[in-house]
């Protein structure tokens, strides 16, 4: 009796599982189709696209569109390809992510472990900055950058992204450190560790999971930003602005294969960050749960 009912329970379970997997598969395909179209068409000569089926695999495989997008395509007036802009973006995003994460971690540390009068108000104000739309700050930001002599430079963009990023990075680290036992900080104080020693030796070593979250968030946001890039980039435009120039150019024929390749190039770093850091993120969570 009990065995029979158990049997049917298992069977039910299996049907559910099959259903779930089929549904997931359908959705996965649905989301992967655009990527497939992009990759497939970026590897075809232009003639195959204009004269044929977008959904088909290339008849003649070529990496010519990729090379062109990377190094010779017309961006604005110069035939430089996306390469210099890609480098601009890297030069912008790496320091911006590092600086905003470090400041966020320090803020979180102070707001939870070195509490002072009015700390919650300050945190509230910082949270508020997460909800200010980019457009509102364009003009004041331009004025500040002008005063600092950073208009139209990568350094200016770094500053803008750091300032905008601090709200979120502080939120992440504050909430993470709020759950971190204060007794550890007190023990370290009695042991003679100073403000930065406690941060460096005690807090940071256990901040892996939240650092990954923060870095993924900041990297994607800063890399994908377009508005600040075109507004404040000047000559040193980031990748997003360059891609726009490439795709929107009104002269000549539309080279869809080159556009696809360029778009994938622009998305590649964020994809990479998700794939590499995402795994560490899961690993960090697992380590915490196993320790219990």
């Amino acid at each position: 009796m009990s065995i029979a009912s158990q049997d049917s329970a298992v069977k039910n379970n299996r049907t559910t599982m099959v259903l779930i997997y089929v549904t997931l598969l359908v959705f996965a395909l649905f989301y992967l189709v655009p990527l497939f179209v992009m990759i497939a068409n970026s590897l075809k000569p232009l003639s195959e696209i204009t004269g044929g089926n977008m959904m088909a695999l290339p008849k003649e495989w070529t990496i010519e569109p990729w090379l062109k997008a990377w190094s010779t395509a017309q961006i604005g007036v110069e035939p430089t390809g996306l390469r210099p802009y890609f480098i601009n973006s890297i030069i912008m995003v790496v320091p911006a992510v590092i600086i905003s994460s470090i400041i966020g971690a320090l803020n979180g540390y102070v707001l939870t472990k070195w509490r002072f009068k009015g700390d919650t108000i300050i945190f509230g104000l910082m949270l508020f900055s997460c909800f200010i739309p980019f457009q509102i700050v364009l003009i004041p930001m331009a004025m500040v950058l002008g005063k600092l002599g950073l208009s139209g430079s990568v350094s200016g963009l770094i500053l803008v992204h750091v300032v905008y990023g601090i709200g979120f990075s502080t939120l992440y680290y504050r909430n993470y450190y709020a759950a971190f036992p204060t007794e550890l900080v007190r023990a370290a104080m009695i042991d003679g560790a100073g403000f930065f020693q406690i941060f460096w030796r005690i807090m940071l070593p256990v901040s892996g999971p939240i650092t990954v979250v923060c870095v993924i968030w900041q990297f994607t946001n800063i890399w994908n930003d377009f508005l600040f890039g075109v507004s404040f980039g000047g000559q040193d435009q980031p990748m997003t602005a360059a891609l726009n120039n490439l795709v929107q150019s009104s002269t000549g024929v539309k080279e869809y294969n080159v556009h696809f390749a360029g778009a994938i190039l622009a998305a590649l770093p964020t994809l990479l960050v998700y794939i590499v850091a995402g795994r560490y993120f899961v690993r960090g969570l697992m380590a915490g749960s196993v320790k219990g």
Partner: protein
Amino acid sequence: MGFLEINNVTKSYGAVKVLHDIDINVDEGEFLVLVGPSGCGKSTLLNIIAGLENLTSGEIAINDQTVNHVHPSNRNIAMVFQSYALYPNMTVAQNITFGLEMHNVPKSEREAALNDVAKLLQIEPLLNRKPGQLSGGQRQRVAMGRALVRNPDVFLFDEPLSNLDAKLRVDMRTEIKKLHQKLKKTIVYVTHDQIEAMTLSSRIAVMYNGYVQQLGTPSEVYNTPANVFVAKFIGSPAMNVIPATITIKAKHAFACFEDGSGKAIDLQLSQPASSFNNGQSVLLGIRPEAISDLGNEDRNVNISKPFETMVMVTEPSGADTFVTLNLAGHDVVSRLRGDVALPSGTLASFTVNMDKVVLFDPETENRLDI
């Protein structure tokens, strides 16, 4: 002049006063236990001694030096926390030597100190493990090691055993006592467990509501509790405290109970009749072990006249049997020998060791000092 002086320390959080004029002098080598129910201010006082919290007024002095404005790391104290507070990213060895490293002690000395402490606490095989790979008892040892290695003037313990299971707690208690006897260091130890307080301390400060209710040796606190709170807090089962009226008959004072049924019980007090007024109300405090079943009392003490009453509940616990009896309408717990045969619901006769009885003022609840 004490080695560690807590002089008129008060602490307020905003308008809420959590410590009121705490005044305790601790001698060198003394084991002071701060005991009291949760929320009474024990940890706050300990943190003030450590320098982790600021005091609102008063003074902390260690070794004749005011340390009110001295950073915790320079007070030459070490602290063991309830959660052990081991650094999760460091090995046991790194945990123990972190404080020495922060004080710029050379590596060779650090290693020598580590080996001494590891040997003393028998944690040598654990030195390369992370705290996450240790059992509760092992973590406790490591936390002690971290405190010992600094060779401080004063050890501060904040409920160090309350995260351990019952058996381990008793074992570690004995070890802490042994360690204190061996090292003869000054210790301030916080606990809410009165048995820990009694067994470990050379003196106990019983705290309640931010006040020190009584400061004294374990036997003082147990035998002459300052007030009803201390009487009921220290000792398990708690002291029986029941209202009574004093009657003076033939130059002797009696504590009289009426249970409404007209059957009065009179217990002749050891205290002289001249200390009382006829008809005075008191609270009578009787320890469970001061009550005996008839025929089994201690011969060398002042024993009351036997009284017959109903046995309400009998709880054998091995060595002792706790018998709840009805004394003039009040439930009174007695601690009798293990093999006593007094089934509940029967009538039996009991006596009280009157030398152990304490009297309290029913208004102030303070002990009547007579």
